[in-house]
């Protein structure tokens, strides 16, 4: 490797000389990036560099870290040139309104640019730590408290998590498990309307705690929400380490064995964070059916961003699945509660005090995604508001204790959440021009081709290179677009009053009995209608304003892209029914099934606390209603014998697909929890299921196909929705008429 040799040559430079040389060349490249060259040369430069990126991507040059750095620099160079041009050439004052809107669009771009730019550098070298079990005698292990904070979630959800906690592989005398019930506080139990429900739920949770031999803790008042709940529990517990688990985050048995070792190695370590793994698809995945084939939305954060943050000692606490050192936490008075993202806020404080964090990139808790689009938006609004609060109230850049790279990492995290604002602006900008003539982007087609398109392509290629394994092309656009219009009020709200947002729990474990149109759909549909109306406006503008042809081409192309994304998003607002109480978890591996005298070898496809799915050879005579027994092995070599009855058996080619329900699952509850949730290797296998990202075009057409399906469903839903509303209106009218008649 020539680069390696040259790098070794540079290695003789001392730290100071290295940084000085870096500064000199950095300034030189910055100087080149602002140098004005003719447009045709810029065209060659922009596309030439995109070509270099593309070739390096094709030749896998980006696999080496040097290649990665080089590509990041090229992409940054293209983007900086774009921005220099954008500032120098396109910000033109015409009139106050137009300039205001133009500035808003520019601000949106600045946000996206900063997120992209800082994101590239923070993600330049993700740290993938060795995944190993702690290898010290039990008596040397630190004592651990497990906190399961809960508020209003169903007791059944808490029961699974608590049961799984009791199965964690850790010396019993060093482990204490606590259900922290904020739904059963004195305040809530005495509430005139909520009291009965709260008392009933508290009794259920106490009973679960007693059965499992764990502790139940509650308090008088619900002060500072989750943070207050944990801090209250810290006063009555004494473990050296604290594992915090959301009540729907079911841990695997190895979660402590794979994390506490880091605390023994580094006394300044305050946090080991592990990923959140979700067993069910979120509403978007459910709609586009990508849960099993494409990486989930969270994977980009937990597989891409957090390892990258870890490199910069900036991996932060995510509210759950994190182990914290009590002594360090106590130094900052426990979990912070000034913002509604108490996790990140606490991390900033501890990082600022010079403590370290580690991220272990192995999923060891299994949680539930939001079931409906409304719940999804509630969850995202909380994250959005919380992270923006961090930016506004606890700005990392102003925090003297943080290192500059930590400031950048935290800033990148909160700046990202302006995407609702940015996406909304990108959505309306072309429509605004086509409908009203307000031009927010003063550029010719040639300039856009020479500056903006290379910047877009380079950004896209870099996203694909940095996160391609965890995020397929266009998925970010889709997710961000559907959220944008709903996050905008949350964004504006928190900017207006940063202290106002309060903690809202994401509803979990809901079941949907039928398909229905999300109540959030109308604003989105109205926006699409407005965008559609811009198309004829574009036509007439083209006829009437020959001098604006460039602008019309740019805005119409932009609008069409927006419409495509909106079109694909249509189906997301069509909520699909969810009948299973317990989600089936993906599974793989062999299964032995006893049918009569013959034991058939099959392959497992999924299971849950109530049933399982597998494939058997077609020769196995399995019929609906048969009571059979299955033998399954987990990655730790433990065998499970599971009696079940067949509820579905459908032949498919040379196989038969079987679905079964366990016989008396309550009797095997603990065993089933252990089987379904206890094995982290299975979550890891799911992550590494090896789905290679398809090409951009393939994804685009697949999404369009899905869009068509979604559009059909939506149209049907809209018809039903309006028919229902009309029916209700006439019904109301009829009642009024009748009442009047009766009065007369």
């Amino acid at each position, binding site marked *: 490797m020539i680069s390696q040799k040259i790098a070794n040559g540079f290695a003789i430079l001392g730290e100071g000389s290295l940084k000085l040389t870096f500064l000199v060349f950095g300034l*030189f490249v910055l100087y*080149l990036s602002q140098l004005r060259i*003719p447009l045709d040369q810029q065209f060659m430069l922009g596309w*030439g560099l995109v070509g270099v990126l593309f070739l390096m991507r094709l030749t896998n040059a980006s696999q080496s870290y040097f290649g990665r750095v080089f590509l990041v620099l090229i992409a940054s160079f293209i983007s900086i040139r774009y921005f220099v041009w954008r500032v120098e*050439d396109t910000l033109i004052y015409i009139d106050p309104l137009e300039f205001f809107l133009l500035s808003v669009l520019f601000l949106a771009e600045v946000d996206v640019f900063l997120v992209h730019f800082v994101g590239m550098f923070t993600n330049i070298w993700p740290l993938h730590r060795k995944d190993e079990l702690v290898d010290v005698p039990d008596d040397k292990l630190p004592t651990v408290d497990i906190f399961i904070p809960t508020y209003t979630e169903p007791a059944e959800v808490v029961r699974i998590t608590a049961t799984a906690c009791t199965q964690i592989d850790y010396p019993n005398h060093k482990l204490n498990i606590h259900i922290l019930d904020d739904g059963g506080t004195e305040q809530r139990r005495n509430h005139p309307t909520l009291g009965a429900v709260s008392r009933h739920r508290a009794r259920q949770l106490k009973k679960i705690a007693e059965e499992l031999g764990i502790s139940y803790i509650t308090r008088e008042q619900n002060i500072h929400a989750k943070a207050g709940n944990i801090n209250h529990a810290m006063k009555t517990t004494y473990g050296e380490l604290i594992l915090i688990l959301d009540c729907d985050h079911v841990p695997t048995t190895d979660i402590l064995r794979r994390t506490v070792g880091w605390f023994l190695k580094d006394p300044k370590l305050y946090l080991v964070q592990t990923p959140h793994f979700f067993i069910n698809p979120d509403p978007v995945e459910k709609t586009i059916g990508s849960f099993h084939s494409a990486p989930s939305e969270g994977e980009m954060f937990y597989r891409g961003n957090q390892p990258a943050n870890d490199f910069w000692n900036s991996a932060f606490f995510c509210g759950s699945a994190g182990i914290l050192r009590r002594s360090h936490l106590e130094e900052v008075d426990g979990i912070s509660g000034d913002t509604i993202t108490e996790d990140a806020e606490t991390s900033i404080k501890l990082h600022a005090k010079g403590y370290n964090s580690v991220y272990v990139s192995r999923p060891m808790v299994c949680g539930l995604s939001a079931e409906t689009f409304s719940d999804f938006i509630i969850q995202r609004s909380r994250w959005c508001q919380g992270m923006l609060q961090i930016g506004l109230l606890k700005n990392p850049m102003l925090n003297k204790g943080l290192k500059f790279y930590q400031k950048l990492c935290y800033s990148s995290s909160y700046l990202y959440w302006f995407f609702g604002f940015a996406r909304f602006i990108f959505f309306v900008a072309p429509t605004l021009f086509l409908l009203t003539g307000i031009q927010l982007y003063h550029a*010719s087609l040639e300039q856009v081709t020479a500056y903006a398109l290379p910047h877009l392509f380079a950004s896209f290629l870099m996203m694909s290179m940095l996160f391609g394994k965890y995020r397929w092309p266009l998925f970010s656009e889709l997710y961000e677009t559907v959220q944008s219009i709903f996050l905008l009020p949350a964004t504006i709200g928190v900017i207006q009053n940063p202290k106002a947002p309060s903690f809202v729990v994401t509803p979990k474990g809901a079941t949907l009995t039928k398909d229905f149109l999300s109540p959030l759909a109308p604003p989105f549909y109205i926006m699409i209608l407005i965008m559609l109306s811009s198309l004829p406006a574009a036509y007439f503008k083209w006829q009437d304003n020959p*001098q604006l042809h460039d602008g019309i081409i740019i805005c119409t192309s932009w609008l069409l892209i927006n419409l495509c994304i909106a079109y694909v998003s249509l189906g997301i607002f069509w909520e699909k029914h969810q009948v299973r109480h317990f989600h089936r978890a993906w599974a793989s591996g062999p299964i032995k099934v006893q049918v009569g005298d013959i034991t058939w070898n099959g392959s497992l496809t999924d299971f849950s606390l109530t049933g399982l799915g597998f494939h058997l050879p077609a020769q196995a005579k399995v019929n609906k209603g048969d009571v059979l027994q299955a033998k399954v092995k987990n990655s730790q070599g433990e065998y499970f014998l599971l009696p079940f009855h067949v509820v579905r058996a459908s032949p498919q080619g040379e196989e038969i697909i079987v679905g079964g329900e366990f016989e008396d699952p309550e009797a095997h509850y603990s065993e089933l929890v252990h089987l379904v949730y206890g094995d982290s290797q299975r979550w890891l296998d799911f992550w590494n299921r090896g789905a290679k990202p398809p090409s951009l075009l393939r994804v685009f057409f697949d999404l369009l196909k899905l869009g068509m399906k979604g559009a059909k469903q939506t149209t049907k839903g809209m018809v039903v929705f309006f028919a229902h509303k009309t029916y209700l209106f006439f019904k109301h009218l009829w009642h009024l008429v009748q009442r009047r008649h009766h009065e007369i």
Partner: protein
Amino acid sequence: MRFKSLKALILLLLSGLSVNALAIKQVIPLKDITKVEAVQLKCIASEYEIMLPIPERWEVKKATLEFGYYNSAALLKRTSQMVLGLNGVPLSQIKLDPLAPEGFAEVDLPPLLLESDYNSFRIAVSQHYATECELPCMPELWTKVMMNEAKLKVEYELKPVPLKLSAVSNFLFDPKSFPAGNVHLVGPNKMQDDFLTVLGMTTSGIALRYDYRKTFFTYGQTLQQGKDNVLLGSHAEVNRMLAQYDLKMESTGPSIKIFHLPYRYKNTARTKDDPEWLITSDPRFALLVIAGDTPQDLKLAAETVDIMSIPFPHSQTLSVREFHMPEIALYSGKQILLTDKEYPFRKLQYSTRTFRGFNAAPTHINFRVPSDFMVKPNEYVELSLDIAYGAALRNDSALNVLLNEHHVGAIHLDDPSGAIITGYKLRLPTHLFRGGLNQLSFDATLTPFVTENCSYVQSENLFLTIFDSSTILFPEMPHRVEMPNLGLFFVNGFPYTRWPDGYESMLYLANHSNSAISSTLNLIGLLTQKNGYPLFGMELTTKEPTNYQGELIVVGTLDKIPQDYFLKAPLKIGKEHQVPYPVFESWDQKQALAFSRQVSEVGDEQGIILQMASPYKEGRTMTVYTSKEEEGIANLSKAVLEPSVQTAITGDLVFVDYVYNEYNHKLFGDGLDYQVVALSAGDTYVTGKAGHISKPDYYLSKDQRVYWAALIGGLVILSLLIYLILRRRHKNRS
């Protein structure tokens, strides 16, 4: 003695009378007098106007305008006619005969109607193809007037020059003088650079008074008859010259005085005691004397002459005490629009104009933008128009806006009740404008509301007014242009007039003869007229400038120009020439050039203009005017005064040859024509606002390969450094 005096007086009177009685006859192509074109007059009524200048000093005895025309063969002779009028008075009416569609008009312009000013000559047609039931704008309704081939025959006498210095501003150097101004400058044979610079400055001032009118300058040591003379020098020098004519400059210090042009003639009726030469003066021409004993005094006097733009003073003599010029800014020359500043049309010499009737002639606004504007495609010039239009206009009426003769916008006149609109915004992309001179035109198409067949067509309501309160606003634009570009030189003298007074520019005369100086003065005159500001800051020198840091012009024969100058030239001239030959037609002319090294001769008369990067300073320019002989340079300096030659000059290498044009000869009696070949053959460079850019900027933006190399090199090294820093960190973290 008394007899002698009487005799001399009689002779003088006779000679004076003979001079005064000498009427001048001229036949001049109209295109040499004013801007004209072949124009098609359409619809049932249409007209075309030209402005005929008559100089103050002319007393016109007779004037005739001749032009040809073609009319449609579909016209109805009885009702179709052309009316020719001067200053609002109809002079002639010509029937438009469909059976004789090619006509020739010869109109006598009564001297009484011709004012010493710009005279409006209008050609109005009324055209019909039927006596009733007529559509007003049928395509058959047209007459084409060939004003581009028109001739003006004029016979005039010159009025005596008033012996007042105020004559400088409105009588002597009058842009209405056609076909050209002629001025002779008189000074010493051998001169210092200081004097040469003052000479250039004086020329510049005179050229500026002549405004757009082509002006020929000559230089010599004696007075020349038949043209105005300007004598420069110290009091001793000018008095030595004046003494030959019994004249004297009494004043001291920087001073100016005007005389009738004196001359000596041989006494043919002399007796023994009579002098051989008699002295008299020609009152038709002036001798303007500019005197100063020190170079500063002389400069002060010359500068004062240059700025005499109003008729003051009425005295014959003026002693200058002090002189102040207004502060000038970069790019603030003639008619130049500054950026980010709103200009009402009235400041652009536009007065409120009302369009009436069908096919009213368009109106134009001329202005300049700096030649080195870096035109960005996404910026707009904002026009804010205040207009009013009449009622009962049909829905297809519109006001069209043209820029440099190309349609760029329109206002739909769609209110049948008429309207007055203030601040109608039209945004024109800046890339439609060109560096230098631009013309914004407004062309109204007005159609009456009722035009049905057989209905009475009311055309009296067809009104549209564009008020002079309308404005134009140029956005802020950077200055950066790729050079060489001789085209810009002939637009506004760029880059020599970046500072309007020619500051940071030098003109080097490689030859020192009168002819070479005359040629140089012609160039200075041209530059001034293009620039619209006297070139007080331009230095003139006869010594080879070494290491000059500004913009340089070199005038001289090939053998006198230092060979080093040709190192960066598109045409390398020396013992062996390196000549570029275009081999095929290509979008990129440089790609199509073959270069021949040869030993050959440049033609005696062939003029060559080259432009290239200055050998002394990056981003600066050197322009060379050269020929093999001095006569060639003289011819070249005259040729470049011709608009047709100026238009053809582009690129960085121009050859001007003199050819015979039979068409011109037959039409106007003068067959001299110019053949201009222009190429882009040399290396390019970039110049910015201050005239130069930093060395790194220069090299990196000049050659894309250098930029790429620097970029890739920089990125690779930076990547390695970052990689190394990160690798160290990775070791610490994992």
